[in-house]
């Protein structure tokens, strides 16, 4: 199973970036092989609108069905939902912490966007 984390770095120790759409990278962790790859999301850092949409499409493209992030806006939520991706929110400091929470089943899926558009 693949799980995506929004992050500002490219290792498990890197900080979890709580802004989904404007995170610089997505770390895609594979629980079967216990390995990960990193996908670049930097094209979105300067987008004035629609960053979350593009980011959500990037996540959908990884084939993962689980996303762990801080906040998710309504447009990104719509894309992720349509793509059948479950969203988990956390305030963990690092990707490793968030992964531990995810694996232990501590994180709940969110059923709705939790911030207004401009937060994404």
């Amino acid at each position, binding site marked *: 199973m693949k799980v995506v984390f929004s992050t500002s770095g490219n290792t498990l120790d890197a900080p979890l970036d709580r802004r989904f759409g404007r995170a610089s990278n997505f770390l895609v962790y594979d629980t079967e092989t216990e390995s990960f790859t990193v996908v670049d999301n930097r094209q979105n850092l300067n987008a004035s*609108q*629609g960053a979350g949409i593009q980011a959500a*499409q990037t996540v959908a493209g990884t084939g993962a069905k689980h996303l762990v992030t801080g906040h998710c806006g309504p447009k990104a939520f719509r894309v992720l939902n*349509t*793509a059948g991706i479950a969203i988990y929110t956390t305030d963990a400091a690092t990707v490793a912490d968030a992964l531990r929470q995810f694996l232990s089943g501590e994180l709940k899926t969110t059923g709705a966007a939790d911030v207004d558009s401009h937060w994404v």
Partner: protein
Amino acid sequence: MILAVASGKGGTGKTTVSVNLARVAGRHVQLLDCDVEEPNAHLFLRGVLQRREEICVPVPQVDASLCTGCGECSGFCRYHAIASLESGALTFPELCHGCGGCSLVCPEKAITETGHRIGVVETSEADGITLIQGRLDIGVAMAPPLIRAAKSFLDEGAPAILDAPPGTSCPVIAAISDAHLVILVTEPTPFGLHDLKLAVDMVRELKIPAGVVINRVGLGDDRVHAFCREQGIPVLLEIPDDRKIAEAYSRGELAVDALPAYHAHFENLLFRSRELYRAIRSEHHADLRI
């Protein structure tokens, strides 16, 4: 002639200048309220509604049975208004600029265009003034297409005063882009000066002649006056910081109706604006529209 009234920021009295000008401009003048997010000229006029038209922009509609999720459309759209997923492309009409590009690039011909309502244009009559106002629907972010639609309601044969939205961004440019002259309304304060400089840069970029109205004179300092002198921008009218104007508004009256002296001031403003435009037009008559 289209006379636009603009200002680098809100709250300078731009709308009251527009409405007072329209009032002294005589019969058959058109007042176009382009502040489509918050039209307010109607508050001063109490007109009778004549006509209301819905304005739509074309947005894509995806036939999911044809879509392969190839990603051509989302790769093309620089506004991120369409996302492609395996289950079919997803559209965001509120971000779409209606360029039609996605339907052109779709290899499966899965995209057709449908109208998405962004607001209305209302026309009303108030004592010889035809008020045309655009009103954007709540939650719609795209003012420029609605402003262009509102402008298409202008009768080119009659004079028009155009109340631009505040600021110097795209909606303002859409509003003033084919005006013959722009009146920039400002205040004699440091903020007023800062925003006036931005507005002057904008009109110069657009190559539209401009004059300045300084409102609430007596309130700040004389740096706005000095700036206009240095830059050779004519000050067409100075309106004092006069309690009587505010009192008239609080009774729902316009300055030009309540206070005869202001009637003369605004007639003078209109006269000087026309003179300024004529002078500039005769200098380079080839470049300017009439």
